[in-house]
């Protein structure tokens, strides 16, 4: 059976049972770090993007031919006559030459005159053929790692890089000629 409350009792009950909605500053006694988190996430995104673009770069090393032995291309003097392998990029293809003379197409023997070792096929340079050719030379001279790379004045730099790629290692990843000396290209 309900009982009768006096006004004072009612006021007391109300005072102790009203639900007080907490304000935004009262809900948590911690700092509101959500805006800070937004900034951090954005920063991470930005940095991640710029770093991933760096990961796509590599470098190709080359040095200048030096008269004295030194620098990247230094090797102990051999008893054998050095191969002195030369790669020249010209308009019509690649010319490979050693101290014995220019290599004829097929890379088996040398030839004289204006011979192109690896002629251009159609519009593109025949890079697989150059790689095959370099592998043959490497089989003959297994200790040789130096190659002097040069080109005609109008040859674009990207073809030079492709040529260096082709002679650096074979299809199996075995090193062929990876010590590149860059020459000014006077034929």
């Amino acid at each position, binding site marked *: 059976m*309900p*009982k*009768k*409350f*006096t006004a004072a*009792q009612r006021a*007391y*009950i109300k005072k*102790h*049972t009203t639900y007080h909605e*907490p304000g935004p500053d009262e*809900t*948590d006694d911690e700092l509101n*770090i959500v805006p800070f*988190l937004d900034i*951090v*996430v954005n*920063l*991470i995104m930005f*940095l*991640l993007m*710029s*770093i991933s673009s*760096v990961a*796509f*770069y*590599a*470098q*190709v*090393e*080359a*040095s*200048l031919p*030096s008269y004295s032995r030194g*620098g*990247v291309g230094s090797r102990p003097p051999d008893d054998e006559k050095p191969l002195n392998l030369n790669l020249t*990029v010209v308009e019509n293809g690649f010319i490979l030459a050693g101290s014995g003379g220019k290599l004829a197409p097929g890379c088996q023997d040398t030839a004289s005159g204006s011979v192109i070792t690896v002629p251009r096929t159609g519009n*593109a*340079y025949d*890079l697989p053929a150059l*790689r095959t050719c370099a592998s043959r030379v490497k089989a003959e001279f297994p200790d040789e790692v130096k190659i002097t790379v*040069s*080109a*005609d*004045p*109008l*040859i*674009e*730099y*990207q073809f*030079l*890089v*492709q040529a*260096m*790629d*082709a002679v*650096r*290692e074979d299809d199996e990843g075995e090193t062929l000629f990876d010590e590149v000396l*860059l020459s*000014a290209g006077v034929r």
Partner: protein
Amino acid sequence: MAEQEQATAADVRRIIRKKKKRMPHPEHHGLNIYPMMDMMTILLVFMVMQFASSSAASITQNEELRIPYSTSTVELQETTPVQISRNAILVDGEQVLELRNGVVDPSSKQGGGNGFLITPLFREMQRVAELKKLIAAQNTRRPFEGNVQIIADGRTPFRTLAEVVYTLGQSEFKNMRFIVNKTQNLGGG
């Protein structure tokens, strides 16, 4: 009908307890994001460090500078960058010379059209070399090795490249590191 009984203090307390039970509890809501914050901060610091250590981050490729592709997998090493775009040569981000379609103007070369030494580039590289040697003299852990990074447009004619390389060689920079885009296939991609 009987008259209502006067409520006692005990009744008042009972009523309060009952009403309080029905009131929503001020529960602790929200995910605990502190572990995530820790992780994020560590990631951020790590990335900032990496960002600061890689100078190559400043390479921006555009129509004037398209870097060729290569199968090389050699990681970048930080050295003085020399950038050859279609219309300028930049050393460490500062333009030293203007090019016309990747060709050096004969007036900028010693000996004119047939010359190889690019005078403004030579002067700048000598200055850089002197600076590097000065650093090397103070700090044995950073010797002067004549390393230089070449960031060149793929369409640069070999003549220009040879001139730049010759000029660098004259200013004692003998180890060239050509910056390329990585690719898997021979012949670019």
